[in-house]
């Protein structure tokens, strides 16, 4: 059973199936019901499941995220939708201080099987309060799992994986991916949480990335290929846990590393990956590692400025070329 659908439809299908198969699953968030979801992911679900399970909440990020934790503690499998990662900062207390800690500080007595989905990323000219990629921050926190589906298949699979997980899982859906189309095979065995996937094999350089930057990296790899540079492109899929094994195997093969991350450089996932390669595979490197990240500004509105702030295909190509010139 495979076909081409949008990323948005894939997330919706996964929610729909999960709700059909498990009465404990419900969706809660701002405008998920009557409005149909701020990115239209949940459109039609209210009609199908009713207001008891597709719950419109007031503008209370901390309140309803905490309610998701409470419901998870009390036997449910809630999916909390937060409109964007910027607004999730109002729920940071509940996510970091409660969801992530409950199991540990109770000595293993209580776990929190909660799924939180939110949109992330820039490129829609939404300015400095709607465009940032802060998934890297969340990846700092033990007790959470951080997923970044890039493909339609992962958009579908990861929701199911997250719902099966006994611990809190945050899913970051890049806002520009909702309209992207791809193949969905519902019968395919999902790749586990914590496993990266190699999207393109290559022997010369490893491009390590996640989310929407995967597609920019793949495009860059095709350009590089015409110049005789074969890039291996790795989609991390999960920022916590990170798949050290796949990363190090690739480094040991190509000996050159370029990381592409839409987050800012300072204190980012890209920095973490560099540190790990330094710790685990330093002597495999033939050249200093490089990265392409967002420029360190609050995101601007004007299109040309925003595009200049984001990682782009040409920046990736240039960075890779430079890296290949190193002896």
């Amino acid at each position, binding site marked *: 059973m495979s076909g081409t659908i949008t990323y948005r439809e894939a997330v919706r299908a996964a929610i729909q199936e999960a709700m059909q198969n498990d009465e404990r699953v419900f969706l809660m968030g701002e405008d998920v019901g009557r409005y149909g979801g701020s990115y239209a992911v949940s459109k039609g679900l209210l009609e199908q499941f009713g207001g008891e399970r597709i719950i419109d909440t007031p503008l*209370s990020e901390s309140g*309803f995220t*905490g309610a998701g934790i*409470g419901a998870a503690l009390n036997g*449910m499998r809630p999916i909390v939708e937060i409109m964007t990662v910027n607004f999730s900062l109002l729920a940071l207390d509940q996510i970091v201080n409660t969801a992530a800690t409950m199991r540990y500080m109770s000595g293993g007595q*209580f*776990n929190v099987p909660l799924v939180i989905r939110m949109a992330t990323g820039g490129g829609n000219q939404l300015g400095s309060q709607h465009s940032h990629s802060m998934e890297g921050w969340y990846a700092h926190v033990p007790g959470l799992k951080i997923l970044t589906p890039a493909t339609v298949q992962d958009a579908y699979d990861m929701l199911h994986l997250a719902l099966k*997980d006994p611990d809190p899982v945050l899913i970051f859906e890049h806002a520009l991916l909702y309209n992207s189309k791809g193949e969905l095979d519902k019968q395919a065995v999902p790749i586990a949480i914590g496993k990266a996937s190699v999207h393109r094999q290559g022997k010369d350089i490893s491009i390590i990335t996640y989310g929407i930057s995967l597609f920019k990296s793949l495009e860059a790899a095709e350009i590089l290929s015409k110049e005789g540079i074969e890039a291996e492109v790795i989609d991390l899929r999960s920022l916590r846990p990170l798949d050290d094994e796949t990363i190090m195997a690739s480094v040991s093969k190509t000996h050159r590393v370029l990381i592409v991350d839409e987050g800012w450089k300072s204190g980012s996932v890209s920095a973490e990956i560099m540190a790990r390669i330094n710790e685990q595979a330093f002597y495999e490197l033939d050249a200093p590692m490089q990265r392409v990240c967002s420029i360190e500004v609050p995101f601007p509105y004007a299109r040309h400025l925003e595009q200049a702030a984001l990682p782009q295909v040409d920046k990736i190509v240039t960075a890779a070329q430079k890296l290949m010139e190193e002896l």
Partner: protein
Amino acid sequence: MQIDINQASSYYRQMLLIRRFEEKCMELYSHELIRGFLHLYIGEEAIAVGVMDAAGAEDAVIATYREHGHALARGIPAKAVMAELLGKAEGCSRGRGGSMHIFDAKRRFYGGLAIVAGGLPLAVGMALADRMMKRDRVTICFFGEGAVAEGEFHESLNLAALWRLPILFVCENNGYAMGTALERSESEQNIAKKASAYNISASQVDGMDVFAVAASAKEAIAQIKENSAPVFIECLTYRFRAHSMFDAELYRDKAEVEKWKQKDPLTLLKNQLETAASGSQLDEDALEKEVASVIGEAVAFAKNGTLEEVADLEKFVYSEEVQQ
């Protein structure tokens, strides 16, 4: 007032257990056997004891960092709590929680939460789950009046009222949030009134009077079940000791503390018995002895407890430990 001597004696024993337990904690703190933050419940015992009397075994309890009293009144064995305070593997949170993070799944005790107001959203979700699954349970959520200034308080009260959730909110108004008196932090100091503004049935009760607290909690729980809507009780009380062990109490008069000590919930209960002239009396000596032996055992148990293996430091971060 008619007073059942067995009931009175049971309340008294529970409050005395908490009082003596907390005094023992202070002593162990000065011996450096208990470390970290330690918040004592002395003076406020009637609230936990009265409310827990109204709670059923199926109901859930969420409390704050000042929760030893709630844990004991809920029936968590003193030795499991004491072992936790001493950081032992036998502690109810296996040494990972400490004084501020007491948990007990069996007794549906969900903390021990140390972010002011952080427990209120949890209560909303717990009650939402019960309602969705059509379970006849109540979630009881304790917090101090300091929580009232937090956004999570307002978000949670609104959600609870809007969704008509079975929650008993218990505000323990002891007049101070650390060193900040209520009148220095709230424009409206009648907290029950604030709850009423959310269309929640709310009242004030004398938090030093265990009978009054129990009666109002019982009525509240019946009302919650009947109307399927939350109820809010503001218990007026006072903490006799410092906020924590790191508090020089510069912000209040000794005279004020002494005035409140006249309303000591243990003394009040004894006086109530006397004026009730039921002819029966508390056997105070016997109760003291009984409590002393429970606490003695708890301390011995905790001292003899083992230390969690350092090799297990990362245990319980995730349900199945993941490779980082």
